[in-house]
């Protein structure tokens, strides 16, 4: 596979850690900080997903639609 299986563990890990930090910050009464942490974690994961989706679309374009390649 072009991509490693580790990446899905990374995404799941980031999700769980962000959820944990969110809970802890909420307990400490820092709601706004908790939301920022969630947003930043989301952006990081979104970047990873966007990279692979871009790769997928480029490949599909070269295989099926004969553009680029």
């Amino acid at each position, binding site marked *: *596979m*072009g*991509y490693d*299986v580790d*990446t*899905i*563990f990374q*995404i*799941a890990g*980031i*999700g*769980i850690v*962000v*959820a944990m930090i969110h809970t802890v910050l909420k307990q400490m009464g820092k709601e706004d900080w908790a939301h920022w942490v*969630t947003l930043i*974690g*989301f952006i990081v*994961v*979104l970047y*990873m*997903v966007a990279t*692979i*989706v871009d*790769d*997928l*679309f480029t*490949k*599909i374009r070269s*295989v*099926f*639609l*004969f553009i680029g390649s």
Partner: protein
Amino acid sequence: MSIDMIQIVGFGLISAFLAMILKEQKPAFAFLLTLFVGAMIFLFLLDHIVMAFQLVETLATHANINMVYLQTMLKIIGIAYIAEFGAQIARDADQGAIAQKIELAGKVLIVVMAIPIFNVLIETVISLIPG
């Protein structure tokens, strides 16, 4: 090939499990994980699809078929695959309306792509009619 299948099934099971855990904490992350896994399996399959296409292309060149028809066919298959992928991801995110619109767009674009072939077919039929 059989090793590949085992790999994909194991991969899918692991990711389904992770998505299940993640869904309770943060549903958005679970959705991104699903999207990632879908893209990854698709990327993996593409290498095999290329092989199948090469076979079809060799057959077509041996049979002296015009390559334009084959290309149109492959493009239609590609559109169908992409539309299905997008629609299922959207449906997974509980956005059934968007999924249906994606499918509709796929159908319309396939019909538009097939128009030149229909034209050739109609012309052939007309030329066969005597008088």
